């Protein structure tokens, strides 16, 4: 669906607000369902993104388990001797946590269907200073590059004939310590070169700048924003009462 990045931002804000505000598993499930449906409408790469953050998901799952175990209350579900391990309240808290995070992650994927220049422009047209919006977008763009950089270095050191799997653990730390230099230094050099080319292309030459990308809200955008806000308030009201 072709809508303004600002509209997407509003949707994301609505969904995450609901995720944080609501403390009821059933309600949260409903919000998650809505999030998934909206993501499908926007044709986000949900699965691909989930695969990318697989490791993070494990960490979240671990946190959920810990939270379940340490929250007492309600009926006891599992106990070993005198020690209560899992209660209904604990289970509920853990589930809530997982669903909440899933809503936030999945709703954030909606934004990724706009390119960063459009998002920057959206923020600028919302009166955020261009410099700040631009810097943030560069920062976000740099993250995957940094990850690539680390992966490349791991590949490169193996290609020098190091069979990491076969090296004893103590030596392996030494090998990993060698990765620090290229990643750290190349990041700094890259940042320096990048700032060189940004400055030489006239960044901040004048007080203002023109913009080739111009966003215009359509009736659909206004309609979507209006109904998102309406639905969000309705859900909140329903939840509170």
């Amino acid at each position, binding site marked *: 669906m072709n809508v303004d990045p600002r509209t997407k931002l509003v949707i994301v804000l609505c969904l995450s607000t609901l995720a944080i505000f609501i403390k009821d598993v059933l309600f949260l499930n409903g919000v998650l369902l809505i999030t998934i449906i909206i993501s499908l409408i926007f044709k986000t790469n949900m699965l691909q993104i989930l695969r990318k953050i697989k490791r993070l998901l494990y960490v979240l799952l671990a946190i959920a388990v810990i939270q379940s175990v340490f929250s007492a209350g309600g009926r006891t579900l599992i106990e070993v001797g005198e020690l209560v391990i899992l209660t209904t309240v604990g289970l509920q808290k853990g589930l809530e946590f997982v669903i909440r995070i899933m809503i936030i992650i999945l709703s954030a994927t909606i934004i990724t269907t706009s390119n960063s220049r459009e998002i920057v422009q959206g923020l600028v047209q919302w009166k955020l200073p261009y410099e700040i919006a631009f810097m943030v977008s560069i920062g976000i763009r740099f993250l995957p590059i940094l990850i690539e950089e680390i992966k490349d270095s791991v590949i490169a050191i193996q290609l020098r*004939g190091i*069979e990491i799997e076969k090296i004893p653990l103590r030596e392996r730390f030494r090998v990993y310590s060698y990765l620090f230099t290229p990643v750290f230094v190349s990041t700094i050099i890259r940042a320096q070169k990048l700032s060189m080319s940004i400055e030489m292309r006239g960044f901040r030459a004048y007080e203002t700048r023109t913009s080739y990308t111009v966003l215009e809200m359509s009736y659909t955008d206004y309609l979507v924003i209006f109904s998102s806000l309406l639905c969000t308030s309705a859900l909140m009201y329903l939840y509170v009462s």
Partner: protein
Amino acid sequence: MVKLLDSIGLKSVNFGYIKGKKIIKNIDIDINIKDITCIIGPNGSGKTTLGKLMMGILRPDSGEIYLVGEDIAEMSLGQIGRKIGYLFQNPEKQFFSNTVEDEIKFIPEIKGLDKKYIEEKTALLLDLFQLNHIKNSFPLKLSQGEKQRLALAAILVNEPGYLILDEPTKGLDVERRKVLVQVLKKLHGEGIGMTVITHDYAFIDQISDRILKMHEGEIVEDKRNER
């Protein structure tokens, strides 16, 4: 298929970074490991990608790649790295140390090779690639040409049996290019074959046994070069 023991064989290899956009289209080829094979072609034709596939850095979407009879899908990067030396298009990607000298030394040191042997070998390579005057410099601060030479020296300390070089003459002036050609010829004389990805026609003329021309992911020309 016949698994040739003297070649790197690609069998119906397909590859694309993005789904539905093939960079390498059904390539079938045997590259003799004794030859110097040059891969040429316009920007974006898939040369670097082909090199990375041969090296196991990228894994094909479909098809098989054999390294002297062994399926590289079953080899680790480290195992491949012991057999083939790979020069990245951006040599800084393969620097890990704080000095030029250490960059050459540290791999054999990790492998636990004899100290005296390492010293000698390092001195030899520093000399060969004219790196002696900067042996205490920080690798990432070197000029493009110096980086290129250091990267090659660091690969050769491993004594690989085969080399894949991605644009080795990039950023080299004529003097250094001459030296490089001499070095590569010498290595070839010692029985080391190589695949060289390059735009440098003068270089190709001087050094190649076989020239493969790529265009939009396919090999469109395959000819021998009589030197």
